[in-house]
Every structure is written in C-alpha cells, then in structure tokens.
C-alpha cells in the first residue's frame, strides 16, 4: 500500500494536549499533539454520529467527542466505551523541519 505524506501545519500550530481539524481532498482528519509532545492522527469524524472530533477535548491520550462525550484513545484509535464502539482509523505522523506530516493511504 503506497502512502503519500501530506503536510498538515507547522508543529507549533497545535498546542500541547490539543487537536486540530485537517481537511484534505474531501477527507477530514484530526491531528493531535500529546502532553508529552508527540503527534498523532486519526479519522476526523466520530464513529457514533459523524461529528468533528477536533471540537472535542484532549486529555492525556484520550480524545473526547464534543457531541456526546464518546472517548477514543487517539494513539491507537481504540473506542473507549459507550456510546462509541467502533474504533477510529489512525494514520502515521512525522515531524520534519518544523512541520507536521501525515501519511494518507
């Protein structure tokens, strides 16, 4: 499977323990910076009702959906309990020359 790296933003445009929305070619992603300064990416929409996760709250390695507080581990994509039960897809991330890139397959 070939993946192409897409530039998201400058690394410092995402606050620590925060998330931004990234739209690319008709798809939407959520890109995270963890409290320990690592970057991650998942699908942008909650698996419960297609709500943008980037409006939600990041706490440690959890992203909480803004709509009904469904929770996912954004590092693994794992759904962490009701009302969400379907995992999020995750994407590889790298930081190069001060910019964040995600690999979209």
């Amino acid at each position, binding site marked *: 499977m070939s993946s192409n790296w897409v530039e998201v933003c400058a690394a410092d445009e995402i606050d620590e323990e925060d998330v931004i929305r990234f739209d690319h070619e008709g798809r939407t992603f959520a890109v995270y910076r963890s409290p320990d300064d690592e970057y991650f990416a998942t699908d942008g929409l909650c698996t419960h009702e297609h709500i*943008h996760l980037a*409006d939600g709250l990041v706490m440690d390695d959890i992203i909480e959906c*803004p*709509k*009904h507080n469904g929770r996912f581990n954004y590092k693994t994509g794992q759904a962490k309990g*009701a*009302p969400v*039960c379907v995992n999020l897809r995750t994407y590889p991330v790298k930081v190069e020359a001060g910019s964040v890139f995600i690999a979209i397959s």
Partner: protein
Amino acid sequence: MRHIVIVGAGECGARAAFALREKGFDGEITLIGAEPHLPYERPPLSKEGLAGAEQPKYVAGAERYQAARITVLTDAPVARIDRSGKAVKLADGRSVTYHRLLLATGARPRTFPGAPENSERIRMLRTHADALAIRAALAPGRKLAVIGGGFIGLELAATARKLDAEVVLIEGLPRVLSRGVPEEIAAVVAEQHRREGVEIVCGARITAIEDNGASACVVVADGRCIAADLVVVGIGAVPNTELAEAAGIAVDNGIAVDRTLRTSDPDIFAAGDCCSFPLQQHGGRRVRLEAWRNAQDQGTLAAANLIGGAEHIASVPWFWSDQYELTLQIAGLADGAALTVRRDMEEGAFILFHLDGGGRLIAASGVGPGNAVARDIRLAEMLIAAGARPDPEALASPETKLKKLLAA
C-alpha cells in the same frame, strides 16, 4: 446460580447489562423490556431520527448481546416483583428469578388532563412508535401544535419546520425552557424558532385539547380554539415507579435510591430516568434527572454495585439539546446560583457560569452553533466535579483557557 435481572430495556438497562460483563460478572444476565425493539437511543426521536430513520438507532446490534451472553426479552412487560420469592412476573405469565434486580424502567410522558386517549391527532413522544406516528402525520403545509416549550417540544418544533410543517408552540409559562435553563439562553433559542417560522405562544392557559375528527383543537382560556392537524403534548415526564411501589419499595419522586443506587430493598437497585438520588454537588439534595448521559453513567455504576461494589454517584448532571444549527449544553444544576458570569465566544456562542454564594462553580450553560461550546462546557463540568472556586473574571474572559483553571 447468580442471575442479574434488569427490568427496562432502554439506554440505562442496556448500558448496565454490558457493563456487568465488562466488569467481569460471569453469571446470567436477563434484560427485560416492554417495547418490541432492542434498546435504542431516544434523543434522535425528536431530532434527525424523526425526519429520517425507519429503524431506531440501536444501542447495540443483536450480535453484541449474543457475544456478551445477555438474554434480551422484548415485548415482555413485567407485571410484578415478588420480593420474597426473588422473581419478576411477566404479564404473559412467565417468571424469572433473580439474585439481584435492577429497575431501569425510565419515564413516560405526562398526559394532559382530559385529553382524549388513543386519538390519532393528539399524541406524545417517547418511543420509536410515537415518532413514526408523528412523522406520518407531518407533511408540508400540515399544522402541528406543540404543547409545552421544554426540550422535547422545541426539538420537535424544529424538526417539523425542517419537514415544512406549520408549527405553533404553546407554553403555559411566560417563557420557554423555564425549567433548568437561564433566561438569556432560552431567549436565543426562542428567537431562533421565531426566525424559522415557529409561532410561539407563551403564558397561555390551555383549558382543553379536543379531537374534532377533521382536526384537533387546543382550547385556550379565552375560549379561542387553536386548530391543528396534529397536537403533540410535551409537558414533562413521570417516572415509571409503579412496579417498585406495588412491591413496597420506597418511592420519592422516582424510585428512591441511596448514593450507590440501592433501593430500600438491598437486592434491588434502580437507575436512570426512573430513580431519584442524592446529588453530591448539591449537598445531597434528592433529584431525578431525565438525561441520556445520566442513564448511561448510572447504568454503569449500577453494574459495579450489583456485583458487590460500593461506588458512589459522582457524575455532574450533563444535558444537551439540538435545535436547527444550535446546540445547547448544560453541566450541573444552576438553581441556587448567587452569581452568573458570561463568556462570549465566536459566532455568537456564549456560556453562562453559575457560582454559589461561596464562589464554587455549580453549573455552566452554553449555546451556540454546532459544537462551539462543547469543549468549555466539558471543562466546566470537570471544574464543578472538582469543587473548584474559579475567579469569575477568568471565567468571563475568552482569553483564559479553562484547562488552565482546571490545572490551577
């Protein structure tokens, strides 16, 4: 044999059943519900679900109950609890024995006194069947009269406008959303409804609701008849406590539970819309909530305690409502607030923070387009849970990140 029986296959009962397995309970689980469906979510019934779906939005598919070895009995109203025999008796004559019982019977809509029952023109909204019937009666140009300016009535009004029905909403009190929603927020909501073409009549005293065959009529105090093709009564809900009451279990505006959700019978617990419980953040005042997340949280908590835990109710009440593009979110209970400060956000969104006399944050109510207020309401909820006394000026200033206040 250890057998946990759950009466009421709604949000709360289903959540409890799964949580029992997640927490390692290995005995039998039977979930018994009166409705013909597997447990489904009610919030969509007044929102997009009313306009769209033929099928309810299920909490889980049949295969997940099977995988978790949860026996679900649908269409199976429970008629009686036999406490001495530790069994529930179904209306169809079946009997199911339990070693622990959870009552998650929910609530039902309050009826309007004297309104005809079984009228196709006068309805209420609680179940998927109700939603299907209401939708069938709504079409462009049809007229809907909603009785009651609470959340369900307002959401229904918004959805009916999306279906191009004409809508009049009739409220007895001087404004909509009097219960639990600050006036400033109710005003934003009412204004949005007026812009969308809903006629809102407040301060109306309704003396009767009649079905005249060709149309329905809402009679107001001056004798005037507000005619409509369909009337939906949304004047609140009453908890389903009859089973408990008949079995001699204590009831006090809901099945009365302690802070572990245990009823006056130590082997019987109650959770969700049907129960009243002491709310820790309000000095143990007994409250009953009608809220989706509370149903989930209490279902999970009940599961822990049904299998021997002693966890206390700690969650902060949380509620949301969607109307048109607006979302409203409320954390905590605002009554008893001594001070309210307002934080203005982008796109006209704002949050009101309510503090008590001692400066403790007790509630936050926000409204705005989409999920504009969600993150800050969630942080406010955590501040409330922590018993924080944040600086009111910091709360009011959009420059202060609430996350900082939480860390402080």
